[in-house]
């Protein structure tokens, strides 16, 4: 048990370090610039139309605190941190006076839902197919699958999303290509609404899955094709153990460990992909929020989304790390 505690402490330490470095990068980025960010943001917002003077004053105040202009650098630094720890990014400027945290809170379930489902499907599908392909190396269909995976895997999310958009939006319009649900439905736990959400999520999820599945497939295939040459597998085969059992509990089970670690390591990249996919399909999640915030010059919102994504991704990695001993019990001993 003490081994697991030490492991836990180490992982928690890494989590804190990731958040610390991430927030510091955000701090340095926003403070090392020669441009006066406060006035630039204000002018970007006010150029869109008339805003009430007291609203501008409130913005300026919250911007000054967020950017930490005024006071010594130590004061600036601590104000910045205290704002972030309270998740208080002030009112959004593009959706004044809604607080940034409320906007993010509204968008987050969409992103988390899309991301969790598509990541799990991708990971399970890729590993299952990859494991089979590594075990049945002579099968023609698995070889073909390998070629497809190699062709799809290196293409960035944006390109695949755009191609799906073109195919299903213009050439063969059967699926909704924008939004998170049908506009005319009230949000709630009704059957019609859930159905609409599912239908709208097909294309974004599909583009995430298409890109992601390749790397798990290729990774698992090469892991498994190394494991099948191990002595204990040969021994099991000679001993007449059921082939399905060899594949399931002897071969794939041992290859899962690195793949779980791989999932934790690639979570940041998957999140990047989800952001851009959301934007392409107009999905009402954090990614769309971020990109629109940049267009609108909404500093508080951009900083809020950046911080929340750093927190969210590192929390996801922490969760995977804590579950890791389930896949590889040896961690407790080490």
């Amino acid at each position, binding site marked *: 048990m003490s081994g697991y505690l030490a492991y836990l402490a180490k992982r928690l330490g*890494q989590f804190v*370090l*990731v958040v610390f*470095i*991430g927030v510091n*990068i*955000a701090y340095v*980025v*926003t403070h090392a*610039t*020669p*441009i006066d*960010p406060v006035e*630039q943001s204000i002018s970007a917002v006010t150029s869109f139309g008339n805003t009430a003077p007291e609203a501008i004053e409130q913005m300026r105040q919250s911007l000054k605190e967020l950017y930490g202009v005024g006071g010594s650098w130590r004061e600036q630094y601590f104000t910045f941190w205290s704002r972030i720890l309270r998740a208080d990014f002030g009112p959004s400027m593009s959706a004044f006076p809604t607080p940034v945290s409320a906007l993010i809170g509204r968008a987050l379930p969409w992103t988390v839902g899309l991301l969790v489902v598509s990541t799990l499907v991708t990971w399970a599908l890729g590993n299952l197919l990859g494991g089979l392909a590594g075990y049945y*190396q002579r099968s023609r269909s698995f070889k073909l699958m390998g070629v497809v995976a*190699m*062709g799809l*895997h*290196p*293409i*960035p*999310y*944006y*390109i695949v999303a*755009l*191609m799906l958009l*073109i195919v299903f939006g*213009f050439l063969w319009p059967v699926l909704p290509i924008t939004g998170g649900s049908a506009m005319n439905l009230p949000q709630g736990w009704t059957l019609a609404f859930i159905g609409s959400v599912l239908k709208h999520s097909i294309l974004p999820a599909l583009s995430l899955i298409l890109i992601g599945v390749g790397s798990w497939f290729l990774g698992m295939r090469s892991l498994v*094709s*190394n494991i*099948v*040459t191990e002595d204990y597998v040969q021994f099991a085969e000679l001993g007449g153990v059921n082939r399905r059992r060899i594949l399931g509990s002897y071969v794939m089970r041992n290859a899962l460990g690195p793949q779980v670690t791989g999932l*934790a*390591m690639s*979570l*940041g*990249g998957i*999140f*990047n992909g989800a*952001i*851009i996919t959301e*934007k392409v399909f107009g999905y009402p999640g954090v990614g769309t929020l*971020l*990109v629109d915030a*940049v267009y609108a010059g909404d*500093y508080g919102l*951009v*900083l809020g*989304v*950046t911080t929340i*994504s*750093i927190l969210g*991704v*590192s929390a996801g*990695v922490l969760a995977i790390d804590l579950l890791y001993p389930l896949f590889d019990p040896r961690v407790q001993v080490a």
Partner: protein
Amino acid sequence: MLAILRDLLKYNLEFRIGIILVGIVVGLAILSGFSPYPPGDVYVVPPDVPPSSAYWFGTTSRGQDVFWQVCVAIRNTLLFGITVAAISRVLSLVIGLLSGYKGGWIDRALMGVNDTFIVIPLFPILVLFYFVMRDSMTWLMLAMIMATLGWAYDARLIRAVAMSLKTREFSQTAVFSGMTTREILTREHLPYVMPIVFSTTMNNMNWSIGLEVTLSVLGFTDINTPTIGGMIYWANQHTAIVAGVWWWIAFPIAVVIMAFVGLFLLAVSMNEYIDPRSRLSRMGGGAR
């Protein structure tokens, strides 16, 4: 070196396809030097002409020849990838070799930072950079930023090799003959990790080009320097697909996909070449 190339061409299908794809892409990039129009100029040819014998890839709604635009764009995009890869290679080599060789608290500290950079979602951070810099965000600036963010994964690979090199006899000999750490790392260990450096270069280029395309498409880079992402950005601005000007989007996408797949296949085949077990099985020897 030539013998390696010959072996790869002879026994490795992935390498052959990869080298052809990358060859075509590089060829287009070189052609950009012969472009009859300056890349920034608009309305030099009639707009919205479909692909024909006069304009192979058609022309854009801004009156540019898509073929020459693609050439210039892929050149800039490739240069961007190479710049990022070169700078981040130096970082990952220094950190990986040092961390693996020194071990102890240096290793722990460096790898703590390293794991952080692997995990952190870079896209929001890059967007934040653009948000703050706006128009002062140049091409080179973006390359520098991406390089300082993109070294971590490869540093870990290099560290793993350096750790095993450290226990080899020649490392001990070098220590006893009085070589400094710097000399051991550059003269003794560097040659062993070079193959990894080459194969990760391709993957790193794919990574940085992918991010650059994504950022440009959203208009979050210097959109006046023609790149593949910038072309798609302008095509989207003119709603090229809805207007039926499909060639404006299809050709840059086709070329950049060729670059991605080609680079990836080169990386894969080089990885296989490094691993003697898979090399043997490919040449018809080995167990399976």
